Structures are given as C-alpha cells and as structure tokens.
C-alpha cells in the first residue's frame, strides 16, 4: 500500500449532504413516477367513475385507522391499509423533497452555488425543506 496520498477513487468516499440530496432527488423522483403517477390516475379514474369507486380509492389509500380490526385474517388487510396510508404520506414527502432538490438544480444549472460551504449549506437546507414542507402541508390540511 502506497504511503503517498491517493487520488479519490470509487472505494474512497464518505457521505456528505450534497450526496444525500442527489440520491434523494432520484429516489423521490422515481418514487413519484412509479407509485405517485399510478395513484394520481387511480384518483382521477375513481372520480370519473362515481361515488362508490371514489369511496373504494379513499378506503384503500386513506383508511380510518381507528376502525381497523386486528384479529384473524383481517390482520393482513389492516396491515396493508396502514402501509398504504404511509405510502400516501410518503408520496407527499417525495413531492416536496423533489420540489426542493429540483429548485436546487435550477440554481446550480444557472452556475451558482458551487462554493464548498455554500453547496453544503444549501444541501442541508434542501433536505430539511422537503421535510418541513411535508409537515406543514399535513398540518394545514388536517388541523385548519
């Protein structure tokens, strides 16, 4: 093993805020494409098909957790309904995260924000912004 400094390589790296923003941009974008768009179409299709279809959609994606049964075979359905509710909330996070990191792309594509300290600060702000907007959205929707 050489004792001189080595060039950065595929196996020599550590996590940083900019890397996190980058991978979360891809994860949230692909999540929105593979899960969000089908749910959007189910929502529109249900609205176009009548009240019963919409009740089915809402019953799966936004179940009343207080009314779930936790005995016998109903446990599987109840567990799925909890997961789907988390998926719905997760999609809202994916949207707000992708929105914030997408705005960061706009700024960086204009050639700004490449200084190391600026880049690190806005990477942290971007990731935090997605979480804050998600929390604010649900707070306004549920509480107001």
């Amino acid at each position, binding site marked *: 093993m050489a004792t001189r400094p080595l060039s950065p390589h595929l196996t020599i790296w550590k996590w940083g805020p900019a890397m996190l923003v980058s991978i979360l941009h891809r994860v949230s974008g692909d999540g929105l*494409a593979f899960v969000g768009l089908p749910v959007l*179409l189910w929502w*529109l299709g249900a609205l*176009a098909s*009548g009240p019963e279809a919409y009740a089915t959609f809402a019953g799966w994606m936004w179940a009343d957790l207080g009314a779930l049964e936790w005995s016998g075979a109903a446990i599987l359905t109840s567990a799925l309904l909890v997961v789907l509710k988390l998926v719905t909330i997760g999609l809202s996070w994916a949207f707000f995260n992708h*929105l914030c990191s*997408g*705005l960061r792309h706009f700024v960086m594509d204009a050639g700004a924000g490449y200084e190391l300290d600026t880049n690190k600060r806005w990477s942290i702000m971007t990731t935090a912004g997605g979480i804050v907007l998600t929390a604010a*959205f649900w707070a306004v929707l549920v509480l107001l």
Partner: protein
Amino acid sequence: MGTEMTKGSDHGSGHWMLMQYTSAGALITCAYLVISFLLLPDLGYATLTGWLGGLGPSFAVGLLIVAVFWHARLGLQVLVEDYVADPGRRFAAVLALNLAAFAGGAFGILCLIRIGTGAA
C-alpha cells in the same frame, strides 16, 4: 423528445432543456393542485368532482398531467440509461416507457373530460 434509439445525453442540450421546461410546468401546476387541496373545504367526492368540473381547474390539472407525465418520461429515461447497459434491453425499456407515459397521460385527460361532462 430525445430519441428512442440513442441516449438522451447523445443529443446535446435537447433532453436537458426539455427537463427544464417540463419541471417549470410541473412546478406551477402542482403548486396550484397543492394549494387547491388546502383551500377546498374537504376532499370528498362531491367537492372534488364539482371543483374539477369547472373549466379553470380542469384546464390546470390537464396541463399538470401533460407536464408530469412528460417530466417522468424524461426522468425515467435517465434512470434506464444509467442502469441498462445492453442496447437492446435499453431500447425495449425506453419503448415501454414511452408507451406507458403516453397511455397514462391520455387516461388522465380522458378522466378529466368525463368528470367535466358528468359522464360518471
């Protein structure tokens, strides 16, 4: 729209510019949808169909569908090009992506028309 035969990155700034345009369109129309969700009295069937039956909301959500499906098509093309190395498999993946994106967008617009005309 890039092309199906080669990579988007082989076509200069075309794919990148479309990414900018569609993201700006998605940003504006999605902001409209999110704010509408917050301002509507509830998100029940009667409220939503009454709202989406209006010309303005129907137009805005129609634009949203075009923007997000086009944007997703471009984004997933990058995903395919990053992870599918074999040219034949890549062609098949991008072909399926184009069909799915177009079909999905068309279905969304059709739903809007049916909601607007009260065909449900």
